[in-house]
């Protein structure tokens, strides 16, 4: 009889001790939970281009959180899809071509200012208010803020908006990744390889 009591007491004590440890750990090492929508939103490129068919990145983040597929963001491209897949623990999917293709280089909108008629249509289209101007006044793009989303190009009645690649300067230039000279990778130009070694 007493042995049962001892066993029970022992187990109870252990339970209390471990419970206390777990409780302490839960408080002490509490993970600051970032709501999932915000985490997803942080991974999206914030171009607000709407190519995903949602009116901006946040709405798409909300949609993803609600089960929308993660491959609808062309500006983010593959890296965003992989990051989202990592975050959500799902398989990365190839970019949904229906929503557009990933661009190789960052773009910026430029208004050919002498052609601008000041219709304000582009101002209304810009999701991040990066176009300055007033009715009947020439408009201009705040290049530093422009995300290159394209949304202003369509509404312009006189087609005076161009999307141009962001200019490389001495300040933002950096070396390219070395060409794939590492021979462990599949080589399209085998003869080159053979020859390169003397």
């Amino acid at each position: 009889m007493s042995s049962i009591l001892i066993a029970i007491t022992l187990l109870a004590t252990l339970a209390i001790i471990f419970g206390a440890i777990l409780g302490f750990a839960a408080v002490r090492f509490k993970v600051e939970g970032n709501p999932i929508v915000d985490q997803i939103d942080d991974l999206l490129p914030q171009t607000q281009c709407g190519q995903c068919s949602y009116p901006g990145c946040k709405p798409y983040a909300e949609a993803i959180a609600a089960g929308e597929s993660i491959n609808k963001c062309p500006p983010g491209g593959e890296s965003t899809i992989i990051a989202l897949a990592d975050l959500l623990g799902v398989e990365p999917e190839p970019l949904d071509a229906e929503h557009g293709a990933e661009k190789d280089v960052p773009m910026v909108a430029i208004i050919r200012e002498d052609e601008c008629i000041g219709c304000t249509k582009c101002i209304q289209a810009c999701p991040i208010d990066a176009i300055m101007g007033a009715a009947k006044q020439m408009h201009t793009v705040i290049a530093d803020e422009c995300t290159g989303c394209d949304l202003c190009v369509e509404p312009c009645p006189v087609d005076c908006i161009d999307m141009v690649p962001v200019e490389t300067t001495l300040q933002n230039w950096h070396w390219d990744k070395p060409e794939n000279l590492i021979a462990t990778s599949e080589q399209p130009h085998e003869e080159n390889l053979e020859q390169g070694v003397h």
Partner: protein
Amino acid sequence: MSSNFVNITSPHAHGGNSTSRIMLLVILATVPGIIALTYFFGWGNLINIALASITAIICEALILTIRKRPISFFLKDNSALLTAVLLGIALPPFAPWWVTVVAVSFSMVFAKHLYGGLGNNPFNPAMVGYALVLISFPVQMTTSWASPFFLSLGTIGVEQTISFTESLQVIFSGTTSLSDAFSGATPLDTYKHLAKNETANEILQGPLFSGSENNWFAGGWEFVNIAFLVGGLALLALRIFTWHIPFSVLAALGTCSMIFGWDADLYVPWSLHIFTGATMLGAFFIATDPVTASTTPLGKIIYGAGIGILIFVIRTWGAYPDAVAFAVLLMNFAAPLIDTYTQPRTYGHDKANRGLPTKPDASDKEG
């Protein structure tokens, strides 16, 4: 950019070192050991090495063709050859030919190329091949060891020798009747089994242990190990690898065996641990395989010590005659983890960053 001048990144000078040179030097450093092996245990290992090399080169060429990689470029790096030589040394001298072929082809195809080829394999290919045949063909792998007294080509205590053609016969035709007389288990295995009911002195009287009371080494094996030690030290002097791994392997194994082996009647004494079996080969040639080892200075010490301890544990309490292969493979598993937690302190930092990046993977979005 089209211009008349070459445009490439710095540095423009190069020290002239190359992968094939490193591999070749390692192969050359095994030569003293191979000579010793041949001297004491007959032609078996030499035949194995030749067989393994041919198999390795054929396998490598085949799989490179399948993987659409340049064949001569890779064959020139000597890495396949090195794997083959190490396997040829490690396998029992009288292992049937097909054991060698299976081990080598498995190590080339599965342990190396299926992981992406040289530099990408997480496990030491030679040891993967070795472990495979050890598990699959335990009989051949435990009884094909040569007894030096019967096989030595030298003069000390020669009672009988086995000629080159006889060796070929044993390996290729599997004439077990012949090999029974000459081969058997390794000294470590023997000692371990005998220690259950005999005293150290009694065991050391046995034929495997030079028959001398004062000799704490196993006949022939000590010279083989010393030969490998010489080769290893030469590589160390040539800065092919650093002292960390061999030192920590030997130190850990020595320490463990001294602690447990003080009573030679119960456990294998430290001298046998250090100077028999594949200890030196393992410490200098196998554990130091850079692809699969830990790479940080502190990590190398931990990795080596892990191998040393595991060798002792498996040799002492495990069922297998030698433990280098398993010890190395087990530590291969641990190498990436060790690396993660043993980053050195960088210039200008108060302490080292260790572990994984703490930030969430937001930075996966590349520019």
